[in-house]
């Protein structure tokens, strides 16, 4: 079992699966309605400098979101094992 990371801790280009969404009611509802769900495969496309936002692609649904670091830190992910399929 691998340790869960938050989105900010992922390297650019790394793929991961969302395992939990923290924060309050409002934040969770927003994230969910914009299309990030538990179990979705995501990839960090780029991270802007000076603690700017991350650009994240939802690989299952094929769209991109810019997500501020504070918010990205509330999204926990796990990195799938090499060669393992879900």
């Amino acid at each position, binding site marked *: 079992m691998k340790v869960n990371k938050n989105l900010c801790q992922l390297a650019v280009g790394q793929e991961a699966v969302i395992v939990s969404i923290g924060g309050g*009611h409002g934040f969770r*509802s927003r994230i969910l309605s914009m*299309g990030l769900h*538990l179990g979705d495969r995501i990839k960090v*496309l780029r991270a802007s400098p000076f603690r700017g936002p991350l650009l994240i692609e939802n690989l299952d649904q*094929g*769209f*991109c979101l*810019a*997500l501020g670091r504070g918010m990205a830190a509330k999204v926990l992910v796990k990195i799938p094992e090499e060669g393992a399929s879900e």
Partner: protein
Amino acid sequence: MSKKVIALVGQPNCGKSTLFNVVAGYKASTGNFPGVTVSYAESPVTLGETTFRLVDLPGIYSLSTREPAERVTLEYLLRKESHFVINVIDATTMSRSLELTLQLMELELPLMICLNMVDEAEKKGIFIDPKALERELGIPVMTTVASKGWGVRELFVRALEVMDEVKAKPPQYSLHVEREIGRVESFIMNLKLAKRIPLRFLALKLLEGDEYFTSLVREEAPHLIPEIEECINRLVESHGQPPEMVISGERHALAMHLFERVAKVTARAEAPSFREKLDAVVMHPILGYIILAGVFFGLLYLTFFVGSFLADQVAGPFDRLTQLFQGKGAWSPFVVGVIQGIAGGVGIVLPYLIPLLFLLSLLEDIGYLPRAAFLLDGLMHRMGLHGKSVIPFILGYGCNVPSIMAARIIESPRDRFITLLLASLIPCSARTSVILGLQAKYLGPLWAMALYLVNILVLGFVGFLISRFHKEESPGLILEIPPYRLPTFASLWKKTWHRLKDFAIYAWPIILAGSIVLEVLTYLHVDKVINTLLAPLTVWLLGLPVAVGVTLFFGIFRKELTLIMLFQALGTFNIQNVLTHTQILVFVVFVTFYIPCLSTVAVLWREGGWKVTWASALLNTSLALVLAFLARFVGMAFLH
């Protein structure tokens, strides 16, 4: 007369506004930016022998009540103002879009689906069977490519055919959830609230813990709240998740299941797409900012070059025409006023307006604005805001009115307050015509660019100061970055034309009337009174000729008026002969910053209340006084 009303609902950037514009003849503005339709647009549409009203509602991700745009849409639907709803779906992100569809079905409205951008979806390897989707959902489904006009006519023909027969049935969830829905329904079924809101929808909202609907129930029947909370707790216990995640998870699973049943996905190409390659440059940590600065100043330079070329073509003839009528009989002030008013519109304002609005539309439709928001997010945090505020700011260079309305996409009230306040400081196209028509023309384009730069620095500084006093964590950026889209020239031109039409219809009469009034005032020597009253400001503080007082007074109505009337008040189109370079600089700086025009003030009041309106008027005026006064010394040092 009861014309049928059809409403378009969909997620941001699904092509809803494009679809609207295809049939409505460009009465609404669209943009490749999530959430550009902040207030809804409507237009009559005639199809064959039937005429109906088409309403374009703001793009929303879900039927919640957190953001103003979402509330506008949900309230509109709950009031049942429309007879029929078309849910527009971006076929490239269909499974996410279906989650909104499922919520719309919970409202039990007459509903159908427009599956848009099917061409792009197929390019991505997603093939959707509309007939299968129709069977699964039990409501009509039509496919379109709105940007090319494909399938649009068929969509509305079908809508008119079925609108009286179709009604969506709410989707069924898992047993656990259904049981709690049933319980909550039995608690609330006799409430007055349940008469205007579908029972099942209301029950689901309460189970999700929606604050707005919970507060409505608390008002009417506070004793029900503990019982509802009990249902929520049971749901949380059985699923081990917060309630909104349980419900949204159910919808998500249902949407994915639907998607798998109606769509075939072929393997996606692994090579980096065009979008990824372009984003690697446009959103690059260093190159991205160079491009951003280039785009910004390129926009202004190009506007100046095209604008001054056009202005030169028409200035001469109007000047000769004016001289022809000057001082000829009792009607002369009236005739001269009319000529000057028309000349002001055609010869001074329009030349700059056309290229500026066209280029802004281009930036918007290509999808550059969200990328600018991404790049500037870090910087905006220093001002206590986040990247989304960049979008109203950029739109503000066209006109402050839509930019202030666009601030509705900002989630937190505090962020919205600061954004509204700062947005009114952005030099709009009217102020740009003053800056370019005077400062760039007589002092050189670099002086104009410097003024824009100073404006941005002032904006940043004011934002920084306010965020010191108004400390509160900004919620941070969540923004969809849509794919690049290449707009057609025709659609860009129509959009520009639509905005120009606004100028012709609303601004021109005011300019015309203002010019006539000024001529008459001059004839009756009343302008002298205004000028004398304003003399302490104009002459003493700013060192301007006494005659400009009246132009500043009329500038409150429309900012272009200051420029047009300056020519009129000084009696020549050759400003250089009557004003020194320093005086031009001071005048332009003052006009750029002082009180926003009347329409901006009105929309500020509506969107933000009296507090932000007064704050803005006070801030603008004091900035104008200080900066224009400082400009005198800058002028003395560097100009003559």
